């Protein structure tokens, strides 16, 4: 088990070992960066075609299957098209800011991967304030979106940028709040310690992931909803609502700059999915004790792909939300629910000391009710924001 599991770490040390000592930290850091960019760049290419194929299959049609076997060379074709397309900059655009916007968006997103633990001791940096670093990086993308929207000097992109910022700000609050219970019960902000806290196994051999607790399940759902909104995807893709505002803040971008925006949207999705896996799905731990022989990074990749499939599945199903529904949903439903979720985690932690054998199911039912009831009341109150049923009058 240790051989295959540590294969990457081992080769990393071996390669670093070839160099003189004083330059080794630099080399190993450069190696990690190179591997991360290669893996997630390739993952971006693969996901862009797999997503279109899955969407197709869910809409009774094939996905792209012309370029290469089963359409797998489609990202290559897209890439060449993106690179060879003329890079048009509008005449009245704010040249420098227009040029800097895609950089300002994609550079921080790459940084966010430094903190995620991809396997047993396979995380680039082990910060003891890892999650704060992740959210600090995540919040920098709003400024870049504004730069893109403002510098294109056209109404559609400004409207798209304003919508994107309003959406990202109002969904960053539930995103952060839904991680608070995990931090509270893991007792640390460092992602490695959070994964370690989920490493033990119960009697039946089932792993103690956060998702197997009521507050963890609610937290994961809240986190995923906020994550789709944070990365401007599927039901919340108002900023680039093709139907009404062309491509939102991406309207005036073409060629490689558009590819950079496209790349950073997917990288944002990968980073958030990686965080969801680390926080709620036990990072690189196996679900059962007897499955521990499988290498740890394989578990991380499996859960990662499962969540990506879930995002694509949601994208294939749900229609786009209006702006007022979107903001109502966040402020009147997600934020209160995530605050209540913190209280539920407290109840779960407090009731952890019960000794009776039937304690676990009772605790589960109790905490689940603590979450379900407010969920129901909030949903009822949210129903209040729906427009009154329309009265149709027909000619007699």
């Amino acid at each position, binding site marked *: 088990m240790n051989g295959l599991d540590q294969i990457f770490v081992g080769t990393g040390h071996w390669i670093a070992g070839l160099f003189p000592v004083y330059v080794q930290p630099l080399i190993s850091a450069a190696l990690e960066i190179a591997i991360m960019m290669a893996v997630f760049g390739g993952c971006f290419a693969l996901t862009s075609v797999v997503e279109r194929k899955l969407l197709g299959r869910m809409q009774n*049609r*094939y996905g792209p299957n012309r370029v290469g076997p089963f359409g797998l060379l489609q990202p290559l074709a897209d890439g060449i098209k993106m690179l060879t397309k003329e890079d048009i900059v509008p005449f009245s655009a704010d040249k420098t800011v227009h040029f800097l916007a895609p950089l300002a968006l994609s550079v921080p997103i790459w940084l966010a991967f430094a903190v995620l633990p991809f396997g047993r001791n396979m995380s680039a940096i082990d910060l003891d304030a890892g999650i704060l670093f992740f959210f600090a990086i995540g919040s920098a993308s709003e400024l870049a979106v504004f730069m893109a929207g403002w510098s294109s000097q056209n109404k559609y992109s400004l409207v798209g940028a304003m919508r994107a910022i309003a959406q990202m700000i109002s969904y960053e609050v539930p995103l952060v709040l839904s991680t608070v219970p995990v931090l509270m019960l893991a007792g640390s902000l460092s992602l490695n310690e959070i994964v370690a806290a989920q490493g033990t196994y119960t009697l039946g051999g089932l792993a103690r992931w956060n998702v197997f607790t009521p507050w963890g399940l609610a937290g994961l759902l809240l986190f995923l909803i906020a994550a789709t909104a944070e990365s401007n995807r599927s039901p919340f893709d108002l900023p680039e609502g093709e139907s009404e505002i062309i491509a939102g803040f991406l309207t005036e971008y073409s060629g490689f700059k558009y590819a950079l925006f496209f790349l950073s949207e997917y990288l944002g999705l990968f980073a958030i999915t990686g965080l969801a896996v680390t926080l709620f799905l036990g990072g690189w731990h196996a679900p059962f004790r007897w499955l521990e022989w499988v290498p740890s990074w394989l578990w991380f990749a499996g859960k990662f792909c499962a969540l990506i499939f879930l995002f694509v599945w949601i994208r294939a199903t749900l229609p786009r939300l209006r702006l007022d529904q979107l903001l109502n949903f966040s402020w009147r439903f997600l934020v209160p629910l995530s605050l209540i979720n913190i209280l539920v985690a407290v109840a779960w932690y407090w009731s952890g000391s019960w000794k009776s054998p039937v304690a676990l199911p009772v605790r589960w039912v109790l905490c689940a009710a603590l979450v379900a009831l407010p*969920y129901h009341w909030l949903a009822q109150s949210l129903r209040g924001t729906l427009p009154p049923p329309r009265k149709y009058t027909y000619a007699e």
Partner: protein
Amino acid sequence: MDGAGIIKGMIETARNFAGSYHDEARLTTVQYPEEKLAPVENARTIPFLVYDGAEALPGLRCTACMICEKECPPQCIYIVKDTVKKPDFVGKMQMQPKVFDIDISVCMSCGICVEVCPFDAIKMDQVFELSTGDRFGGLLLNKTQLAKPNDYFNKLHKTEAAEIDLRRVEEKQKAEAAAAAKAAAPAKPPMAPPPAP
């Protein structure tokens, strides 16, 4: 339950996804160049001229009566009458078109020319791969390009072709009978000579 709508939707797309691998109804795409849809009988794209017998031009049914040219809404048919006459299927001498052009870039596949044609000379084709490189002459089809045999017409529109052929055979027999009767009549006593010179 409050999230029920979302869950129902998700189950439906999941069923689509799973079904697309084994259930025909859930994957209805036809890969066009490789697979083609069976043509529907009453589909129509652009008109073509029907001819009987072996050679195309002498066998054309068209008698250059120009009704279709007048009736065509976008006016995309140009006909020039020929001076030489030729017998039609019942032997009656009929005109024939020297020039019969249709501008298929203008034709809107309405089929009015087929309805107004008294001689069943023009019918609707079902071929749609008509793209050419030459934008001007390429889309103006002349008489020889438009002429197609009657059995091609039978293959395309079976029921209509069958009726027409039946009707034509009857007319032909009636005309021959009449001709025979007229030929037979002088075999009987000749018509009484006019009473007084």
